[in-house]
């Protein structure tokens, strides 16, 4: 069986156990694959809420400054948007990690990539939270 004949071709970094790959890389990929699936399911829900909020809560969509600020003042919205940012960042950077792992770096370099992306992910969410506070503080 060639690679292209496999049922799916998730990258090595997020491969489920059903895909024929060397045992070591498959075992390493299981938590990432599960993480990608779980965050993906959460994103379908959170992105759905995000899209409905942006386009259907106000007849014109959340377009005008005052509408956006009024929307962001709702504590429930803040919680949902921060959760959305956290999940989307995790999902996105896990995907970037899988792409980078396709370059075939050494295990040590892969570890450094994981550390660097973790830092980027945390910085992204922190930036998002600070941005929320700054927007509401400036309004």
């Amino acid at each position, binding site marked *: 069986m*060639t690679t292209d004949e496999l049922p*799916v071709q998730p990258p090595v970094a997020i491969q489920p156990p059903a895909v024929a790959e060397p045992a070591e890389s498959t075992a390493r990929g299981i938590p990432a694959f599960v993480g990608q*699936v779980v965050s993906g399911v959460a994103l379908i829900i959170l992105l759905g809420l995000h899209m409905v909020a942006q386009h259907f809560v106000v007849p014109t*969509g959340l377009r005008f400054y005052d509408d956006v600020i009024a929307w962001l003042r709702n504590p429930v919205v803040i919680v949902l948007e921060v959760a959305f940012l956290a999940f989307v960042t995790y999902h996105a950077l896990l995907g970037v990690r899988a792409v980078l792992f396709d370059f075939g770096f050494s295990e040590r370099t892969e570890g450094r990539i994981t550390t660097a992306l973790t830092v980027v992910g945390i910085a992204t969410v922190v930036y998002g939270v600070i941005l929320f506070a700054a927007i509401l503080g400036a309004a």
Partner: protein
Amino acid sequence: MAMSSAEPRRPASGPARRRGVVGWFDPRGRRLGGLAFIVNRLTGLGLVLYLYLHLGILSLLVQGPGAWDTFVDIALSPPFLLLDVVLLTGMLIHGLNGIRVGLVGLGFVASRQRALLISLMVVAAVVALVGAIRIFGD
């Protein structure tokens, strides 16, 4: 004859040739699942780019209504609306194909993954079309 180390290795035209990032762009001999894999990677990278672009644009809200409203005026121009359609299409393809990858990877509907992929992409196309009409209609 038993395999031995003296036997020739796999020819360079096999799947091993396509390993790595450069191999994504080699369509030769690819089946539908392989193409879906490449499209999923490319749409994913595009969406990561959009995520950080979106965060950057939202920072305009800190500067007050003047900066935000100026951006909104630009964002309502046809070229930007076209980018909205591209974004929507990318999200639909990535999200729906991701559902397929998740289901098959967890052991569900593996035998029907081709039909599932085609069905989901038809759904993506229809929703993208409706979205495009709404985006330009508004």
